[in-house]
């Protein structure tokens, strides 16, 4: 039998994160944090830890709980609040790879501190020329004494500039696009041979370019076998930003509707114009459809069957990118000039949707993958 109801635990999580966003995450605070050096508030991060959110999606023996649906509950609310805290980078991406690849000792050490809010992590995988190709790793790792020495350039590593530890992918064998030969390493960003150049991003977050020149790394998992771990992690990240997009779209639809019921032009509320009504109906349908797809397919992201997981993730990303494009662009257009301004919140929601469409595979990339899985 099908059930789309949340479990009691999921409902509790949902209530807690929605309450937090509504009461403790006002837009001006978010804006201030976003413009700070780290791009988020350490105080919020501490609260996330206290509320248990830094354990979501991590293994139970490390104090973690939940899977893709719990992640989605969290991310949708983060979308509503336009949260900039590095949950995706730290818990889902870096934490996720450690949980899947790390030894018991590594998990103990790294995830313990992560869940407690004592250590922020980041994941450095993409490279300047990799676009969405997960196997395209040119950064290399060579044995050096007991450990490994890494050389290369990692691109747009989310929150890479405020992490205490980095999880970095590098190749010990093979050519740039081979799936074999890719490894994961834990790297101290303050270590020798590591240069971190942080910068703000167009969606109010932060990221970093990371240059490695003989940087010391500790191997995470088996040598050369990290590809499936990275692939699953990025699939989960893609699903997570789809859930975030639901929150973003919900806010944009509500704002547009509110505005159309108050703004007057030509002697009537603009919401009375039929051409605009039909476009708002389209925005409503786009969101409702995306939400239904997420409700039904999010559980498949946890499937042990890789093809099933990837079909679900790619369908979600195609639908949510398409809906996000429509909702984002129409929200700005129907508002008119006001939504073009930095002062008005809608513009920030629009920008985040625009960046999501370029993260973890764009619409065509996922459409091609879905097609390949349907052969």
């Amino acid at each position, binding site marked *: *039998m099908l059930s789309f109801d949340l479990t009691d635990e999921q409902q509790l999580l949902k209530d807690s994160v929605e309450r937090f966003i509504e009461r403790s995450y006002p837009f001006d605070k978010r804006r201030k944090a976003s413009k700070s050096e780290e791009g988020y508030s350490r105080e919020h991060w501490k609260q996330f830890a206290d509320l248990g959110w830094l354990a979501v999606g991590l293994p139970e023996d490390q104090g973690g709980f939940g899977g893709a649906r719990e992640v989605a509950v969290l991310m949708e609310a983060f979308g509503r609040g336009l949260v900039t805290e590095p949950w995706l980078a730290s818990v889902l991406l870096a934490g996720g790879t450690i949980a899947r690849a790390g030894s018991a000792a590594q998990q103990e050490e790294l995830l313990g501190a992560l869940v407690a809010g004592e250590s922020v992590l980041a994941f450095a995988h993409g490279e300047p020329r990799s676009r969405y190709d997960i196997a395209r790793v040119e950064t290399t790792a060579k044995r050096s004494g007991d450990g490994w020495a890494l050389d290369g350039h990692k691109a747009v590593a989310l929150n890479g500039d405020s992490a205490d530890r980095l999880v970095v992918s590098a190749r010990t064998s093979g050519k740039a696009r081979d799936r074999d030969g890719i490894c994961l390493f834990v790297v101290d960003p303050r270590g020798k041979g590591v240069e971190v150049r942080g910068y703000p991003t167009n969606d109010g977050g932060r990221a970093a370019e990371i240059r490695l020149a003989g940087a010391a790394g500790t191997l995470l998992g088996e040598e050369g076998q990290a590809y499936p771990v990275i692939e699953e992690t990025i699939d989960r990240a893609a699903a997570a930003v789809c859930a975030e997009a639901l929150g973003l779209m919900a806010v944009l639809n509500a704002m547009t509707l509110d505005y159309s*019921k108050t703004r007057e032009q030509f002697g009537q509320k603009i919401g009375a114009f039929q051409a605009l009504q039909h476009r708002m*109906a389209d925005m409503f349908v786009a969101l*409702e459809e995306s939400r*239904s797809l997420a409700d039904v397919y999010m559980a498949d992201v946890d499937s042990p069957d890789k093809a099933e997981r990837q079909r679900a993730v790619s*369908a979600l990303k195609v639908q949510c990118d398409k809906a996000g494009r429509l909702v984002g662009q129409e929200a700005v257009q129907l508002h008119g000039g006001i939504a073009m301004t930095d002062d008005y919140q809608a513009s920030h929601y629009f920008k985040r949707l625009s960046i999501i469409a370029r993260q973890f595979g764009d619409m065509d990339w996922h459409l091609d993958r879905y*097609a390949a899985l*349907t052969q």
Partner: protein
Amino acid sequence: MKITYTAEEESFRQSVRAFIEAELDPGTRRKVLNGLNMSKQDYVGWHGKLASRGWSCPHWPDEHGGAGWTPMQHFIFDDETSTAGAPGMMPFGPDMVAPVIWTFGNEEQKKQHLPGILSGEVWWCQGYSEPNSGSDLASLRTKAERDADHYIVNGGKTWTTLAQWADWMFCLTRTDSSGKKQEGITFLLIDMKTPGISVHPIITMEGGHEVNQVIFDNVRVPVANRIGEEGKGWTYAKFLLGYERSGMAGIPQAKRALARLRAIAADQEDADGTLADNPRFRRKMSDVEIQIVTLEATMLKLLAQQVQGKTPGPEASFIKIRGTEIDQHLTELTMEAVGPYVAPFAPEALDTGWNEEPIGPDYAAPVAPGYFNTRKVTIYGGSNEIQKNIIAKHVLGL
């Protein structure tokens, strides 16, 4: 998505499959799977088979002959019958007039009409649209004047689907023109054999005869055939429209159409292999598949909500919009897949018993007619523009 079925659900699926295997006429099945013309007997025969199993109107209340299924059983049944090539049920009797009769009709009317609908022996048609009242249904003008214990009906209906096969019509008539247009409408059940009724075919652009104009010339309808109160017909009509829309997702049909499209693409040669290998065309097929899966997810959620006793609200409007858009998209992609062989017009190839060699591939003949005919789905059942108006008004509060 992997739906986990309970053992009961699994065994139900098997029994549906076995039933279809045993009972579905192979000729009927072939027509459905190949998009050929159906006869009245194809529908009625299958309906009768289902009726003898108690499955013809499974969604009806138990007391009238429903099957008492869970929503999941309905889902399984629809999926299996559609995949196997069983004909769809004509909605006019089972889905449309029957709920009106059991909700607003009197005991006499229930006794008279429900059994024939259940068994499939009585074919109904819908007398709603008129030449001058399309989307604006309430502006209808077909007049019913009281004459002792009869109404004298004069006027005409249009777009009446399969009226040429119908035994009865449920019909909106005007008994009063003095007030608001929604007032003064009366809901009558009319025996199509009554003198004064004439049915005139309307040939649609693909060449088919599916719809008709029905003219009433002093047609005497017993007052006993009136549903509910005189002048309250609009209430009953609106009730029925809700029933109509939610049935228009057409997921199993869309899946069948997509499977057919994939088969055609695999047969069409292309520069490097077949069209099914062409990345551009594969992307298009995947895109529509994701649209289908998305709409299916919405339907599954609605089903789950129905288990909990929630009735579908104005969601029905967006399901109708998306379902019909997907229909049209699929027929258009099929045109694209077939290419130059969409041109031949071969209506005879859609008839049973036509045994000549096809023009081009054997799947080509129904493709253009299907595309042309499917233009109707965004127009009928409340045009998609009307559905957007409904969303704007009733969901968005505009």
